[in-house]
């Protein structure tokens, strides 16, 4: 018990201590160099702005909207990426028909599509979901393709020796075997989906954290902008932690360090 407490202290005290130092420096040092509080607000004023935004009822709703856009976009993007990867690796014809264009499209910076999508789909949350989906689609696709093609020959021999159908091979061996790869893609995709939702909101939206950020920018409320950045960081951490949780839950078998840590 005592040992555990000291381990906890050892783990958490240094980062907390470091954080306090950074906040203190940020709070007091800029004033010494006469940096305008308007351009670089102090942590205390950022917290004040955060409270103000919350108090005006702007925080929770906008947070939930951007969360919904990112999550829905991520879900659509990654599910369709896994489906396309399935088609591409199951059929040589589909692979030869699609791969050159997928590779070509992948080279395009996806955010460049955002204005077009807002024009096509409108300024509602649908356009943000679509942008988030497109931007998180590719890292998942590439990793899923690699995952579906990286199976030990003997595992497939085992399935073939049992005269397993192609769907059985996929369901029993190929798909579970690809999960470490797919999750590598999902870890990247989830972060990109927030970027996608935010870019969509920058281009045209009446709600969401991106919209809020722009409005505060117009009003030169730098402290408020910092507060929104803080909220965005929290959003990113929540979504990343969600994927991480699923990762550890489903891919426990590929991570001996996670599972056998107590042996």
């Amino acid at each position: 018990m005592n040992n555990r407490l000291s381990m906890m202290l050892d783990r958490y005290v240094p980062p907390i201590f470091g954080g306090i130092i950074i906040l203190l420096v940020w709070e007091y040092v800029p004033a010494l160099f006469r940096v305008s509080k308007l351009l670089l607000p102090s942590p205390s004023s950022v917290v004040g702005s955060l409270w103000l935004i919350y108090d005006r009822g702007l925080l929770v709703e906008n947070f939930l909207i951007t969360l919904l856009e990112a999550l829905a976009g991520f879900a659509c993007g990654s599910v369709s990426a896994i489906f396309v990867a399935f088609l591409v690796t199951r059929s040589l014809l589909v692979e030869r028909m699609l791969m050159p264009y997928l590779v070509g499209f992948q080279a395009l910076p996806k955010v460049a599509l955002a204005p077009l999508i807002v024009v096509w789909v409108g300024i509602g949350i649908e356009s943000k979901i679509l942008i988030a989906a497109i931007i998180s689609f590719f890292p998942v696709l590439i990793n899923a393709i690699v995952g579906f093609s990286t199976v030990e020959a003997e595992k497939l021999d085992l399935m073939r020796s049992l005269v397993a159908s192609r769907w059985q091979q996929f369901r029993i061996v190929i798909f579970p075997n690809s999960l470490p790869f797919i999750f590598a893609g999902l870890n990247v995709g989830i972060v990109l989906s927030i970027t996608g939702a935010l870019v969509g909101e920058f281009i045209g939206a009446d709600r969401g954290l991106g919209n809020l950020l722009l409005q505060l920018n117009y009003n030169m409320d730098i402290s408020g902008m910092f507060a929104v950045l803080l909220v965005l960081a929290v959003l990113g951490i929540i979504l990343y932690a969600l994927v991480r949780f699923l990762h550890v839950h489903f891919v426990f078998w590929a991570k001996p360090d996670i599972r056998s840590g107590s042996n």
Partner: protein
Amino acid sequence: MKPSTGMLIDVRDVRKQFRSRSGTYMEALVNTSLSVQAKQFVCIVGPSGCGKSTLLRMIAGLETASAGAIKIDGVSVTSPRRDIGLVFQSPVMLPWRTILKNVLVPAEVLKLDPVASKLRAQELLTLVGLDGFGDRYPDELSGGMRQRAAIARALMHDPKILLMDEPFGALDALTREAMNLELLRIWQASTKTVILVTHSIEEALLLSDKVAVFAPRPGFVREVIDVALERPRSAATRSDPTFIHLAERLRSHFEVAPVAGTA
């Protein structure tokens, strides 16, 4: 030679060549014939690269012969068949499944009754000495235990024929000896036809009714020896004079003339 009656597996004048990347052909196996009666235990012994694994894969229907015929029950083998159980050099466990679920893979592929299959899987785990390990994951078991699980899996769908490709090659000598005796016990309890590929002369003699000696590059059957040793056999069988005599005879095939010094 006339095809003799009562042969379960009949390999006749089989040749196998592989095409290398440079386009040249490499002979893996030439003029290979081997016949196995129902319920016989046959071992194939030979040095690395003599095509013995290739022959086993051809009998399993995982590879096709370049020439000659392989028949099981009088039917030509052109693709895998479900009355064969395969044991590979490595256990080929699916690490995301528990041992029980790994053993159940053939039942799942063949869509056997789930409840009856589960009972049978439990019985098989007891048979191979893994009672109580069904809920463990493969990486929690030793190599020998995993290989036993692989044997249980190969027996799951009650195949007539068991094909084993150096199943104990990766195990230490002591575990290997124990596994040999265990395999004999399992074979006697289930009366299946077994073909086992091995490097080990002792293993081959201890287990089999008949030993086929292969010579390398290109592989062919050099000699087939009947092993007239009493059953049931035990560790003591090794000191039987017949055993010692046969072992010497087999070993004489593998004696290599010393290579001229190349240091």
